[in-house]
């Protein structure tokens, strides 16, 4: 596979200034993305994992420019789309789509399947009438749904069927890049398998590039070529799925995360690293390495100096003082 970048982020920051008094006594500023730089290559699936609130959804939404970044660059086919406004962004929109976690809330209950799926076509193309219906049927066929459901309503479908429809809608404009934000988390395992197979099939047929967000490590392992591990708004490790899952993880957080997932096959079980404490409050991140208060191997420097994401081996990046050349004092 030739490796041309499709999407790149450079020093991407997203700071939410919240008005709510949820974190009293603390500054109401959340660094949801704290300098994220990564490259997503054409036709690959980049998995994103990390604990609740670490910024996965924000990363996906910011890359798609559904929300504006606070600073940094977002390159789509080499063009920086970060500074674009609504109008200049429009030609890029059709190339980048998103599928969300909850299929039940992704559809307007008053709209027929046809109206929902055709919505992006009406907004971005001049397809109308029979040709519009024909395209909608074609999309249904691509996601394995019968064409005769065009005039039915969302409540008539199961979660798995709705997620197929959400994928059909995302495909409507022949996008190049799709952000899949926990697309199977609300589904039963027997149905999850159908959707994962569908996504892989579509990727092969239509040459799609995916950013696949999930907290389910086994799903991410199955579908991803490479995996980015996030902690508190930053990427702490990035490598191939094979490396990370075959014992090659380098960052202490990644190691703990991978060891925490319950495993069915006893011969695949690893020794569990149980992290003490709780994930930190993103409105009040610890100094130095954000992970240091929970890190089982932290040394002095960790609480003082923020480690940077370095390429430790070819194709393998990690941000930890104890990894690679920057060994702690």
């Amino acid at each position: 596979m030739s490796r041309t970048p499709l999407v790149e982020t450079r020093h991407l920051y997203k700071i939410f200034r919240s008005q709510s008094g949820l974190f009293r006594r603390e500054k109401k500023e959340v660094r949801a993305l704290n300098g994220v730089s990564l490259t997503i290559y054409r036709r690959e699936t980049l998995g994103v994992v990390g604990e609740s609130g670490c910024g996965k959804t924000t990363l996906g939404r910011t890359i798609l420019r559904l929300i504006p970044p606070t600073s940094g660059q977002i390159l789509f086919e080499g063009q920086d789309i970060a500074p674009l406004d609504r109008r200049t962004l429009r030609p890029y929109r059709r190339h980048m789509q998103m599928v969300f976690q909850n299929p039940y809330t992704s559809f307007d209950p008053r709209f027929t399947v046809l109206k929902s799926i055709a919505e992006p076509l009406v907004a971005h193309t001049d397809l109308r009438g029979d040709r519009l219906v024909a395209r909608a049927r074609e999309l249904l066929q691509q996601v394995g749904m019968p064409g005769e459901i065009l005039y039915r309503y969302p409540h008539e479908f199961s979660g798995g069927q709705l997620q197929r429809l959400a994928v059909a809608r995302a495909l409507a404009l022949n996008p190049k890049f799709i952000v899949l934000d926990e697309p199977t988390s609300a589904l039963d395992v027997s149905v999850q398998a159908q959707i994962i197979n569908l996504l892989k099939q579509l990727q092969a047929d239509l040459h799609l590039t995916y950013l696949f967000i999930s907290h389910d490590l086994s799903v991410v392992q199955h579908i991803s070529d490479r995996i980015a591990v996030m902690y508190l708004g930053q990427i702490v490790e990035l490598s191939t799925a094979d490396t990370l899952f075959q014992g090659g993880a380098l960052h202490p957080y990644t190691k703990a995360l991978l060891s925490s997932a319950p495993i069915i096959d006893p011969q695949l079980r690893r020794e569990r690293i149980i992290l003490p404490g709780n994930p930190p409050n993103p409105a009040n991140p610890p100094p130095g390495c954000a992970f240091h208060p929970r890190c089982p191997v932290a040394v002095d420097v960790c609480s003082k100096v923020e480690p940077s994401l370095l390429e430790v081996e070819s194709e393998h990046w990690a941000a930890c003082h104890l990894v690679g050349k920057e060994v702690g004092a």
Partner: protein
Amino acid sequence: MTEPLLSVEDLYIRFKTYAGTVHAVNGMSFHIHPGEIFGLVGESGCGKSVTGLAVLGMVPYPGEVIAGRILFHGENLLQKNRREMEQIRGGRIAMIFQDPSASLNPVFTVGSQISRIIRHHRRVDRHEARALALAGFEAVGLPDPARIFRAYPHELSGGMQQRVMIAMALASGAELLIADEPTTALDVTIQAQILALLNDLRAAQGVSILLITHDLGVVAETCDRVGVAYAGSIVETGPTAQVLYQMKHPYTRGLLEALPRPSHRGKALQSIPGSVPSGLDLPSGCPFWPRCPEVMDICREQKPLPTRLDEVGHRVACHLYSREGQR
């Protein structure tokens, strides 16, 4: 073998709704021994939560238990009156839920809530209740128990709230803990903490646990025995190793094959065609037959009864193993 602490026998629960009668639980049977962790696993809507609630006499309106027995220490809980159930609930049998914040009142401190519950179930004064609560917090690994006692629920993370709920159950002397998806809303690193905690409690205090989950990995790592539910009844049950590694029921096999696992990487996953039946419109015969790759004529007509497969209590409800199916 010891007497079971809890046994649910041929339980039926239905909901009369405007859309029709929902048959939520249809002949559910399983038992839990003292000091055992029993996993009740199955897909969304198969009746796990409703069964757990029935044990506490808390089936929500418009649901009703229409048949069956729920024996706790040999006594049928379904025949207890309201006052007796109130005494058992939160006392000898406690329940923790997926969303701990929903079980904690936001306007009272954690300490005042736990003290009240302890005093409802044990004859102690305020100071003793406080001491028991602090000891409970300590036992579940909460840092700085005195601070937690004074805290309001929103000041604690989800994982800490779940620990508080477990501490509450222990402090009031629970023998049976019903944990309904206790880690589903938590991150995996926190899930690992809570599951380790449940395991320790069972070992240290001999608490029995009914662990309701849809995660077979959680079952594999924490449960002694497991029951796989489908459409309101158990299709396969037995020691965890038997059910997960020598599964016999086509549904159990389908579930395990649908899970992404390292050995499946790069291949298409097996999926079970169709979707789970609605309790409004259950198929006759075996509830799994419309999706079953091995369906036979008899499956469409007769519901298979559990067949015992071995001496360790591996049972399966499927005509591939039933006497009727062999003819």
